[in-house]
């Protein structure tokens, strides 16, 4: 009965007694024209924030098991576990606590460094990593809320990076204006690349998942081509597929001085989060977006232009991914970029959006968590020799657990939400008229 888990992101369902009779299985589904994607999307978004937190927790526990398994000392002591079990247990404790404390010290606060100013550096590093993740995550989340799977954040970021980068190294403009124009170009580029998807979806009914995935390839090879073409993006006098460095006027200023990497792009992201929160929760456009995302046919009957909603949503979604791309080339990697500039952020953004339940501040928090994983992962590898892949596994597990709320609920014996929602479906299945 997947229907019982349908509550949308607005209202995580709880057991409710206003209803009388749950739909018989298979009954309510008959009249439903919802696609599998749609159901999956609703399932994933339907859980509560609690599920998100627990998913992270469980994923960290599984990560701990993996860390212990791959630790050499643990493997060694396991050989004589029955003669001296304490050896192995302490080895397990050492490896896991060492790894996670390295993760923490690499991402939040390093106690080994002298003084607060030095100790807090990892947190600043985390914010730097989080900046593009939040921006792109907001883009994906916005699309989710309108009922669209935007798998194309990567392509949108690449195009945005190219646009912002070209303005950044190719134009000569006064300081602040140059930066704003470059960021604007990036957002515009991403928006156009996303807009193509929205347009195709609205006018021809093409499925956005397929279109976005294909446009990722198109963007990647287009950028690769431009990077190898002198006079386009390639740095003059170089044979490498890499752009020149950004002009100083176009680079995001560092927020807290040269010792911290966090740059003004983070401010843009905070503003974007506030804006998306307003858009979704307080604006009439966002109201229509949510209506279309929750029930497009009811939205259509209520006079809402569903097709235009898809188009606008993809423009905005692409624009946000574009902000991520711009922040990469103008803030994080200012010495010129290659085709790998997206650094997997376009896909991590999907995870971030899922973990954040597609709510703006949820995405913000999830973005910072993933930023912390990225920042801490490197120091974990450096300090404890724990492969950074563990972090990727933990991230993947988080998504896995979020995508399977019943699993997490079973583990923690949480009540099943949404039993009350089935009543809504019963009418769809039962074509009957009471006397």
């Amino acid at each position, binding site marked *: 009965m997947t229907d019982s888990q*349908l*509550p*949308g*992101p*607005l*209202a995580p*369902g709880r*057991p*409710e*007694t*206003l*209803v*009388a*009779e*749950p739909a*018989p*299985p298979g*009954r309510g589904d*008959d*009249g*439903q*024209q919802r696609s599998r994607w749609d159901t999956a999307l609703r399932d994933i978004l339907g859980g509560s924030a609690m599920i998100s937190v627990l998913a992270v927790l469980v994923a960290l526990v599984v990560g701990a098991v993996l860390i212990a398994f791959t630790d050499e000392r643990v493997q060694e002591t396991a050989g004589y576990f029955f003669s001296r079990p304490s050896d192995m247990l302490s080895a397990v404790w050492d490896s896991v606590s060492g790894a996670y404390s390295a993760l923490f010290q690499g991402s939040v606060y390093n106690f080994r460094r002298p003084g607060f100013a030095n100790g807090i550096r990892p947190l600043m590093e985390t914010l730097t990593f989080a900046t593009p993740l939040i921006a792109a995550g907001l883009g994906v989340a916005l699309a989710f809320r309108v009922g669209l799977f935007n798998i194309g954040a990567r392509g949108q970021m690449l195009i945005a990076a190219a646009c912002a980068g070209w303005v950044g190294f190719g134009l000569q403009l006064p300081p602040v204006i140059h930066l704003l124009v470059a960021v604007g170009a990036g957002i515009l580029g991403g928006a156009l690349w996303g807009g193509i998807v929205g347009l195709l979806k609205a006018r021809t009914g093409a499925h956005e998942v397929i279109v976005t995935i294909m446009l990722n390839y198109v963007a990647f090879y287009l950028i690769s081509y431009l990077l190898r073409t002198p006079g386009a993006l390639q740095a003059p006098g170089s044979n490498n597929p890499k752009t020149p460095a950004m002009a100083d006027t176009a680079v995001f200023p560092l927020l807290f001085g040269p010792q911290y990497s966090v740059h003004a792009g983070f401010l843009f992201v905070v503003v974007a989060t506030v804006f998306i929160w307003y858009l979704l929760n*307080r*604006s*009439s*456009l966002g*109201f*229509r977006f*949510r*209506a279309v995302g*929750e*029930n497009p*046919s*009811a*939205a*259509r*009957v*209520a*006079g*809402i*232009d569903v097709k235009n909603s898809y188009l606008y949503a993809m423009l905005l979604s692409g624009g946000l991914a574009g902000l991520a791309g711009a922040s990469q080339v103008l803030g994080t990697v200012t010495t010129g970029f290659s085709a790998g500039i997206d650094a997997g952020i376009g896909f991590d953004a999907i995870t971030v959006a899922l973990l954040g339940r597609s709510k703006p501040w949820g995405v913000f928090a999830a973005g910072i968590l993933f930023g912390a994983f990225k920042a801490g992962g490197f120091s974990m590898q450096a300090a404890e020799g724990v492969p950074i892949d563990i972090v990727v596994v933990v991230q993947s597990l988080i998504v896995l657990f979020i995508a399977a709320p019943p699993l997490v609920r079973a583990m923690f014996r949480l*009540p*099943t939400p949404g*039993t*009350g*929602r*089935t*009543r*809504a*479906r*019963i*009418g*769809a*299945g*039962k*074509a*009957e*008229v*009471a*006397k």
Partner: protein
Amino acid sequence: MKLELRGITKRFGALVANDHIDLVVEPGEIHCLLGENGAGKSTLMNVLYGLYHAEEGEILLDDVVQHFAGPGDAMAAGIGMVHQHFMLIPVFTVAENVMLGHEETRFGGRLDLAGARAKVREISARFGFDVDPDALVDDLPVGVQQRVEIIKALSRDAKVLVFDEPTAVLTPQETDELMAIMRQLKAGGTSIVFITHKLREVREVADRITVIRHGKVVGEAQPTATNAELASLMVGRAVELTVQKSPAQPGDRALVVENLSVLDANGHRVVDSVSLDVRAGEILAIAGVQGNGQTELTEAILGLQPHVTGTITLDGRSLRGASVRDVLDSGVGFVPEDRNEDGLVGAFTIAENLMLDRSEGAPFVRGGTLQLGAVQRFAEEKSAEFDVRSQGVGTPVGRLSGGNQQKVVLARELSRELRLFVAAQPTRGIDVGSIEFVHKRIVATRDEGIPVIVVSTELDEVVALADRIAVMYRGGIVGIVPGSTSRDVLGLMMAGEAPTDHAATAAEGVAR
């Protein structure tokens, strides 16, 4: 075979769908299970059929306790079910459908179609069904498809047959035929459980009646009980079954539809040259069996259908080809027939649903920003006015009962300045109490001088509300007759037979 259910309790989480239900069906008896939507009838039958497992209680057949792990076991034990939505494969023939799930094969794994055909013929002959075993199910009328379902159940030697709301999709004539079939089956010794909420059918065919309310058996009744008695048992209080309304005061022709045709996505003509008009202050009911073009007709008026020819004018302004937004803005209120799919956003709150079609401009939006205070005030006011029972206007509508959901739709559509009100299946799947309320509001809307179209497949509703009745059959209008037309005539018209000249002229007289 004697069927006995003892103390069946089925819970869904905190919800008790069936609470210690006892039921005895004697051999050769038609036992009616009467109850409102959501009373727990279907849940009980799904327990019986092995689709659900009851937490408590037992099922006995001829005093032997049964344990059904699934429908297969139930079928093997002699329980057959005729579902409301037929479980037939449209592209298979009758014989193929009947053998489906129990395919007999001959040497080399070839299907024994001849055997299945013979079986269909034999059962058809026994009950005078007249079903061709080689006909494609898709080509058969709904009434015959139902017979195929019955044949299918009987072919597995069902001794207990469960009919789950079998008449919802039938014309009155087909319903009568079904009743005859049920009596015949009963005479042959089959026990029948007949689930319905239609009082008239119950009284006509039942030997005994068990009434279920809120998952509990609230009483037994004799078929001699009056409609009012049965209804009050079902609802738990006295209900008014007739709609009080004064004679219509028709004004000018408001909505004029001429030669309207609608093509569906496959190019089929689903509405065929329909012409009708509705005057201010009258209710035109569009009657007909489900799927005869009524849905598409209303959708065409609202601008939801892409391929429409002909003219639709409201107060002299053409609506054809206008966007839904424009149609709504020109004063059309619309209650869609499937409120969950087309009328409401389940995850949205009551307040949000009440502003769903007014998300642009005053009073709920200013400068692109939602005026939450105005939305909240409006929602509280309308909830009170339309008696929407909830835990507050912040409750998601998906958690409301069908009746309360429909009240939300009505409240939204009736609180705009209307020039036309179209209600499609306004009381489908809602409780008796809410039906009273919905009918009263529809009549009140008419009395305000607004032209009203009510689409209903339910003859009772049509007769109760209509000032004039247009009957649709296969996309066309069979005739437009006065509201006082007898059920027999309407029933024949719903089967496609044109009304007699007398009735037609009477209708013309009203229209002029």
